[in-house]
Structure formats: C-alpha cells, structure tokens
C-alpha cells in the first residue's frame, strides 16, 4: 500500500489551501482523513478534481456511519482515489439527524448509487441528487436499517414474527 505520512501532499496542500475549513486531520495506518466543514465540501471536491498534482478523478465510495447517541450523530465519508497519481484520500463530514448534505454527483457520477445507499441505510438526504430513492430496501420500507437504534431482527409485522415490538 502506498502509505502516507504527515508530510504527504494530501496533508500539506490541504492545510495551505483550506485551513479554515478543516476541523481535523488524521493519519492512521498510512491513510489520510480530513474532517471538513459541510459548507466547503463542494469547493474541496472541485479543487481535488482540478488540481494537477492531485487529480482525484475516481470516487470509490460514499459511506455513512451512525455514532448514536453521540452528537453530531452521523458521519458521511468520501473515499476518493486518483487513477493518475495513485493517491487515496478520505473526506469526512459530521451532521445531525435531519441535516442534509450537498450531493457530489455533479463532480463524480459514481456518487449516484452510493449516495442512494447511504440514504437508504441511514436516512441522510443528499441535496441536488438526481434521483434520491431507496436502493436496497423496498420502496415502502419504514426506518433505516443501519442506524444503531434499528434492531438487528427488525420490527415485528406480519412477515417478521420474530422482530422486536415497536414502542
């Protein structure tokens, strides 16, 4: 694996350019993660795509994590890669339940399915997404399965007699 350290271009470039928008930078096991402010997400994405020595043109995945009951509750992560410069970077934003995130489908079309998946599993709404709807679960499903307060066995109904009672 191409391991990064504190002097990596992924760290330095960012701190030069976006110092006020970066809340925290971590380097763990050779992976760089920037915790950024939600408002600057799209600017940073444009910068990542256009900058010559970064050219992060490949969005591997958009992922969600639920840290219930901590506040802010959710994290949305963007796992980005550069096919020319072979760099890997993770962006992270934190948000409360009910907050929306700007969609990055304008920058990477591959975000389409991934953002739908995050919406399906966590109920996080992506603003500006072309077709935000459930992807894995049935369209009339209630609740968001990967939230920490969603029971492993699901809720009891006529198809699921072993589920938990809804209070």
């Amino acid at each position: 694996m191409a391991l990064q350290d504190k002097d990596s271009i992924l760290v330095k470039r960012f701190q030069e350019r976006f110092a006020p928008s970066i809340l925290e930078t971590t380097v763990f096991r050779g992976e760089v993660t920037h915790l950024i402010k939600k408002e600057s997400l799209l600017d940073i994405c444009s910068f990542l795509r256009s900058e010559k020595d970064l050219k992060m043109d490949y969005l591997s995945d958009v992922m969600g994590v639920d840290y219930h009951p901590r506040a802010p509750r959710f994290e949305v992560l963007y796992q980005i890669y550069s096919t020319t410069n072979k760099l890997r970077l993770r962006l992270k934003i934190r948000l409360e339940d009910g907050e929306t995130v700007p969609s990055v489908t304008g920058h990477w079309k591959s975000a389409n399915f991934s953002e739908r998946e995050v919406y399906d599993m966590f109920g996080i709404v992506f603003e500006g997404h072309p077709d935000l709807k459930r992807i894995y679960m049935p369209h009339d499903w209630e609740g968001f399965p990967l939230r920490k307060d969603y029971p492993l066995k699901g809720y009891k109904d006529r198809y699921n007699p072993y589920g938990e009672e809804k209070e």
Partner: protein
Amino acid sequence: MSDKIEKKGREEIISTRGITLNMGPQHPSCHGVLHLILDLQGERVMKVEPDIGYLHRGTEKIAENLFYPQFVPYTDRLDYLSGMSNNLAYVQAVEKLLAIEIPERAKYIRVIAAELSRLSGHLLGVGAWSADVGAMTVLLYAFREREMILDLFEMLCGARMTYSYLRVGGVRYDATEEFKERCREFCRVFPGRVDEYERLLTGNRIWLKRNRGIGIISADDAINLGLGGPNLRGSGVRYDIRKDEPYLVYDRLDFEVPLGTVGDCFDRYVVRLGEMRQSVRIIEQCLRDMPEGPFVVDMPEIVPPPKQTIYNNMEALIHHFKYVSDSFKVPEGEVYSAIESPKGELGVYIVSDGTEKPYRLKIRVPTFMNLQSIDHMSRGGYFADVVAVVSSLDPVMGECDK
C-alpha cells in the same frame, strides 16, 4: 448521448409508442436477480434503470454484531464465484487495523488462492456471457476447467464454494506438496484451454457481431462512473490495485496488466482472457518461490490452536474455548483496505471502537458500482445488446446486494 439517439431516431423513423419493459429479476441472462427497467422505442433502448436489492441480506448490519473472525464465512457469500478474494479483502482490512505482518509462506498461499479464484470468476463470467449471446459450448468448456480449480480448492481447504480459508493472521491449512503438484499440472494445461476459448470466440462472426462496437464507454466516462476491474481496463485505463498499491507479494511478481482500447464489450472480453493468462503466470511464480515456514502468525490471542491438539491437550482446549467465546480485541481506529478482486476494487472499511466487534463495517463492492454504467452503455443501442452489455460487466448479484 442524447444526440446519438436523435440521430439514430431520424435514420429509421420510429412510429411505435414508447414502452417500458421489465427484464428480470427472473431472466436467464440477468445473472441471478438483476432487474432492469427498460424504456424502449421499438427495438431502441432509451433508458435503462437497474433495480437491485432482491438479494439484500444486511451483511453490514450482521457484521456489527459478530466477532471479527466470525464474519469471514459471510464474506464468502458476497461474490460466491470467487470467495477467496472476498476473504482476502476482509482479513486484510482487519490485519491492517491490528498492524500485523503475516508470514511469507502465507502471503504466497494467499496469492495463489486469490488468483485461482480470479480464474474461477472469469471462467464463469466469460462462459455465461457466451451462453447469453448464443455460444453455448464455451460455457460447458469453462465449467470443465472450473471443476479443476474447485478440486484444487477442495484439496486446499475441503470446500468447493464457500471456503473461509483465509483467517486473520494467515491461512487455515498449509498448502501440501500434493496440492502444489496438482496446481503445477493445472498451470501446464490451462493456457491451452484458453486458446480453445479463443478459437471458439475471438474469430467467431456471431460473437464479433454481438460484441464489437457494442456498449462503448470512453476512459473518462468509465472513471467518472466508477467502473472497475477488467471493465475499466477494457476502456484503456491502467488501474490495477495489484500494481498501483501492491499488497501481499504482488510487487515481486512479474505480470502484465492487459488493456483494451475502444472500451466496447469485445475489449472487456479480451482483457478478461488476457488476465486469465497472467493469473496462470502469477500462480506459477508463486509455486516456484514459495518458501517453507509457518502459514499463520505466532500470536496465540488471534490464532486458535491446531484442531488435533484440542482433543488431547487441556491447555489447547482452554485456548480454543477462549478464542471462540471471547475472540480478540482490535485497536481503535478506522481503515479502508482495497484489493483487486475479479470484478474490480473490493474495499473494506472498518471502524473499530476497541472491542471484539466492528463498530461499522462497510464493503465497497465492485459490481454495485459497475451496474451504474449499464444505462450509459446501452442507451441508443438495440434491446438485444443490453444482454451483451450486462454479461460483459460480469455482475454477481450476491456481491451487489450484500
């Protein structure tokens, strides 16, 4: 893209009413339970919308409630045609969190296992594809070779489909001399068999008509749409994690990355055949260079004792009981670790809170991302081409739906 449709639409006047057609989930060329919603104008495809989730089992939710070693069998059931690759992606992510280095011998065994599973995945991929577009013979031939690979896996770990062979810290059983000998024999035979497929397909007029110039995607579009693996390389993008971020011993092995030029279905087929030949080269080198030594790390807390000792040694029994009931703790942190699976970038993202169970486990599955480009590839083409396009992406729904 819309220009293309309009131009084609003017060439042959379409007088039919547009219809919406449901293809799948029960359809022989839908590779399991893929459901496509097609907007058609006569025979022309205006829009394709993949509707997935029929095989969703909530693997990620299950993972949050299991010990780290308990999750390995679930990974087998993702891409069930090449289970070893899934095992590898998962155990490698856990090892990255633990920051352990596995023994040399285990690395070589893992590469052999991963490449054999790449072969079994590609064989079924190309075989099913040719059956879908009307060349049934190749599927039967491919299964003949796949049988040999499954026999090899059976010698290695006793299972033919769901292996759970790799474990955190190494592999479950050693590769015996007999296995190595059979593996060498397979490597001698297999390139000739690939020639056979080529004789049946590469010059075949029907095969060429159905695949050449069909489902074209440019390099830029492919990257933007998150295409991966042989499909991305078919468009000429040199992105192979084995080369770019070498894991295990791939940096010591001599192999090439086959590339396509146009990015049509035929290129994706050529890349897959090329990869099969390269995999054989990799396996041969691994068999030659594999050192003697342990096949699992010497860390009692993460590796249980050998099964034979459990029956007549009290300490081993206690150790085994501790391992099964308590498992091991993994340091706090988050990692993303990706491998080059037969279908593309297979990544595992783990958030650990320092306990024995992952706080969150996310699997980045290549098929899921590959399916996004069906619409781009099929728009403006004929309905029958959708079948070729889907097959050329080699989707496995078990992996896509998680």
